């Protein structure tokens, strides 16, 4: 039947995005030269641009997009809320606080390790607080989860505002760009770290499969068809949060991918998580690769923050989809 078609569509989209990411850029390089450079057979400058800049950026965009999208899909199932997204429960504001502290401490410039580690620590801190608050008598209460996530987010947000009120101009600007997300300057080391977590993380999310389907019927019915509800909720929360934290620590806060892509996949092809999670993975990768390419191309010499592009592309597409689907 048409079972494989969504995969084909998204794979082609990812392929098109990858081609655009590799073949376009401020440096004009002929397609044939790009292919030669990928094989390492061009002059040093071309190889440096293609293999040192465009390729890692493409891979990073794909990994970050895929992780955010899978994270969003899992959060939506866990919280039984189609508006849930990876940053809802405070991961991003925790990470932002960590990053801002690192920037203020003067660690922003060294870039390579300090900033991502500080962001990761902030994200993990937020996860730990929200998890601890929402766990009552060995149960994870998803209503408390949403509320405590939102409240913790607001508190971290206020802390960031306070810190930035007294921050020097330079720190302000770098914090601003960080909160809009960027895939510029990601190293292969950063990509390896992200991949080492996000690929097994997404696979683990996939393995929850039918348990997430069952959870959509409410915890009681889910338990009655054989789901270990509390275990599944704990695993789902930790997996989705850690996926989000990992992406934020390397690429900053990139909105909309984790909300729009899994939701669009649900609307277009239905909800069974055994297929939804892999589709969200492919779709998220394709979406962010395309958005990043657009961010690099649209602004000329100035690169538009990728969070702006994901919002500009994601929102109209999403509204269109909503209208089409709700029409009789």
């Amino acid at each position: 039947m048409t079972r494989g078609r969504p995969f084909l569509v998204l794979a082609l989209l990812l392929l098109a995005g990858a081609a655009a990411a590799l073949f376009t850029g401020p440096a004009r390089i002929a397609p044939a030269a790009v292919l030669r450079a990928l094989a390492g057979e061009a002059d040093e400058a071309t190889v440096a641009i293609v293999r040192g800049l465009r390729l890692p950026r493409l891979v990073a965009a794909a990994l970050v997009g895929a992780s955010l999208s899978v994270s969003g899909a899992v959060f939506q199932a866990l919280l039984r809320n189609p508006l849930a997204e990876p940053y809802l429960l405070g991961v991003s504001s925790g990470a932002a606080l960590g990053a801002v502290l690192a920037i203020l401490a003067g660690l922003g410039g060294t870039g390579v390790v300090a900033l991502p580690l500080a962001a990761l620590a902030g994200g993990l801190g937020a996860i730990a607080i929200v998890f601890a608050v929402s766990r009552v008598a060995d149960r994870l209460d998803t209503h408390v989860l949403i509320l405590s996530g939102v409240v913790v987010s607001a508190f971290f947000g206020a802390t960031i505002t306070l810190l930035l009120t007294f921050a020097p101009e330079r720190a302000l600007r770098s914090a601003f760009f960080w909160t809009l997300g960027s895939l510029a300057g990601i190293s292969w080391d950063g990509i390896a770290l992200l991949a080492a977590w996000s690929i097994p993380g997404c696979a683990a999310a996939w393995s929850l499969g039918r348990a997430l389907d069952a959870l959509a019927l409410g915890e009681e019915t889910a338990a009655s068809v054989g789901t270990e509800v509390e275990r599944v909720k704990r695993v789902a929360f930790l997996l989705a949060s850690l996926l989000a934290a990992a992406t934020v620590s390397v690429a900053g806060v990139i909105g909309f991918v984790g909300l729009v892509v899994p939701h669009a996949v649900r609307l277009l092809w239905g909800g069974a998580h055994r297929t939804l999670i892999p589709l969200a993975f492919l779709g998220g990768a394709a979406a962010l690769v395309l958005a990043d390419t657009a961010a690099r191309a649209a602004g000329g010499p100035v690169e538009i923050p990728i969070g702006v592009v994901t919002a500009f592309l994601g929102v109209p597409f999403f509204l269109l989809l909503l209208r089409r689907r709700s029409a009789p």
Partner: protein
Amino acid sequence: MSFELTSVTVRYSRSARPALTDISHRFAPGTHTAILGPNGAGKSTLLRVLLGTVRPESGRVTAGGQPVTAVPRRRFAREVAFVSDREEISFPIGVREYVALGRYPHVGPLAPLRARDEGVVEASLETFDLARLASRRVADLSAGERQRARLARALAQEPGHLLLDEPTAHLDPGHQVETLERIAELTAKTNLTIVHVTHDVNLASRFADRFVLLAGGRLRAAGPAGDVLRRDRLEEAFGCAFHVTNLDGLGRVAVPTGRRPRGGVA
């Protein structure tokens, strides 16, 4: 396998009055037991104690001699199916996929359904007249169709026990009878044990063969219709007057006739 409760007391919070107090009862295999009682009597709590989703403060709840909370959920779900009155559907799901969730305890979270599982799903859809609705979305079904879909999902688990919480609550009389007749047919065919929470005394009387009467969290009577569906017992439990009579071929019929039990205290 059979369910047995021994001196079960349930309290939802430390300060609250117990939802169930000192309940002991054994549900015999192959019987259809109706749990009757007024609102707040503890009927739904009793069902959830059997399911292991509500833990008693004291007492023992066993299924086949094993404490229900000690049985891994998937193994438990191969033996016991449950139709809740509080089910929600958060995301669009097709009727066939919904019924196929009943195969979860047999196939696990990730493996595809085997031919046999597909067969059980189709048979279950067939039994509840859902075959032609199989590709519709559950959210688009009528209340009666949706109730049939829930039962089809539960029966796709191929359970030995079926626990029902108010399965006829939002149905008109025709659909009420239809639902319970289908369950009765299944019981006759498969020796299913049924525990059925309801406050409809007459439907219970028509379809069940054992009765448990609860009020205020206590067991007021248990046994066959003659021991439980008596005027004095019903009036005491429900706090209103009843006219109880035997109708040919229908068994006992209890009609509420007034706010105050006759001879009761004001």
